[in-house]
């Protein structure tokens, strides 16, 4: 649970950072190449991490959903008896 919270916190933090980076790019008239490059590197890392986390969450969600479906089927079987 604590891990989930941490992960969830990370994802939120990543998204926030990504939002800041895109905003930085949108608003800057003069691009500082060095800083821009750093931002891009950071953004790519965040995106990669976030995508992985998102995928993990999606998988976990699918697993949970599968369990729910399975339990419903069991209930129906009980009813048949």
């Amino acid at each position, binding site marked *: 649970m604590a891990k989930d919270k941490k992960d969830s916190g990370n*994802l939120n933090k990543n*998204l926030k950072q*990504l*939002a800041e*980076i*895109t905003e930085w*790019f*949108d608003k800057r008239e*003069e*691009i500082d*190449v060095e800083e*821009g*490059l750093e*931002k*891009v590197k950071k*953004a*790519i890392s*965040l*995106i990669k991490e*976030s*995508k992985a986390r*998102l995928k993990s*969450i*999606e998988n976990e*969600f699918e697993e949970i*959903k599968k369990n*729910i479906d399975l339990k419903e089927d069991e209930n129906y079987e009980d009813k048949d008896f």
Partner: protein
Amino acid sequence: MEKNEITENNNTDERIFSVSEYITLLNIGLKKFKAKIIGEVSERKIASSGHVYFSLKDEQDGAIINSIIWKSAYNMYGIKLEDGMKIIAKGYPEIYAPLGKFSFIAEVIELAGEGELKKQYERLKKQLSGEGLFDEARKRSIPKYAQRIGLITSKQGAALADFLNNMGKFGFRIKMIDSRVEGQEAVVDLLRSLKSFKKEDIDVLAIIRGGGSFESLMSFNNEKLVREVANFPVPVIVGLGHHKDEPLVTFAADISVSTPTAVANYLNQSWEEAVLLLERYERNILSRYEEIFENYRVIENKLKISLESFKTKLSSAKMSLEYCLEKSITGFKSLLQEISQKIQHAQEVVSSNDPARQLELGYSIAMAGKKIIRSTKDIKIGEGFSLKVSDGEIGSEVKKIHPVK
């Protein structure tokens, strides 16, 4: 010649009898002259044996007949003979052989004249009442649902038919003893009947007869009979059809009603009540059953409604659960999509702004020191500058400047 050989058929013309034999013959004949005679008692003597000797004198002409009443009969009728008392004696004449004395053997005696009878009745009533024989406290109630009935009455009278016609069909077992119920002679029968019934297994004893005059009911004023009735082992009910001057037996009985029909009705009573009670119980049971069934139907309906309601609630809860689940799933999916879009957007922004990408396309960035050269004015001829390319930097020097207008 033996005495026992003497009969009324003996040829008296030829035969020579001894005195004793002749008296025996006479006594046989005299027995036919059984009669009731009325007269006044005189010269009454009670022998040590208990037998009572007296004369009966004709009221009109003073004619006299010697009379005897044996102790057993005397005690039975409860009349204390006194000189001057007017009585009716029923009996037969007899010659007493040892003395050659003619006597009237009184088998039954009763007082003659309403005045005497009333006097005797009142005296005995007072005496027995004084003894507590008629006390209410002594009265026993007729057992409920009595079945074994002892009945004393005459087969001849209408009383029996009245009684039997009015007895309900409740499984009564009636045992009857035929008894005279009229006149003083009835006392013997009545006492004998009571004695017989004492040995019988009965629930109640009924003594009945039809209505009659005070005189005709005199046997029911007999002291011995009254005492027997009062002390009878099972409750006694009487119906003697009297109008006034109730016979003393009615005071001694546990229950006294006016007629044989009333006795039957009295004995029917508890059974009739039981039938009514049973009918009421039957009705109550049936209605209670109806009530139970009705209650059951109500409960069944309520149960059905409750089950339906529960089923509906269950279904509703399930739907609600499914809705929540669906909502959660779609909500979460859209959240994931939103996040994914944000990441995608960030990727696009980053990609389009990536300076390295521009450099890879062949663009380079000229920099004089740390400043990007954006205008011809930013550098002079002869000054050095660097060019950032995709894979490094190139050092250069300005040789010409051609501003574009």
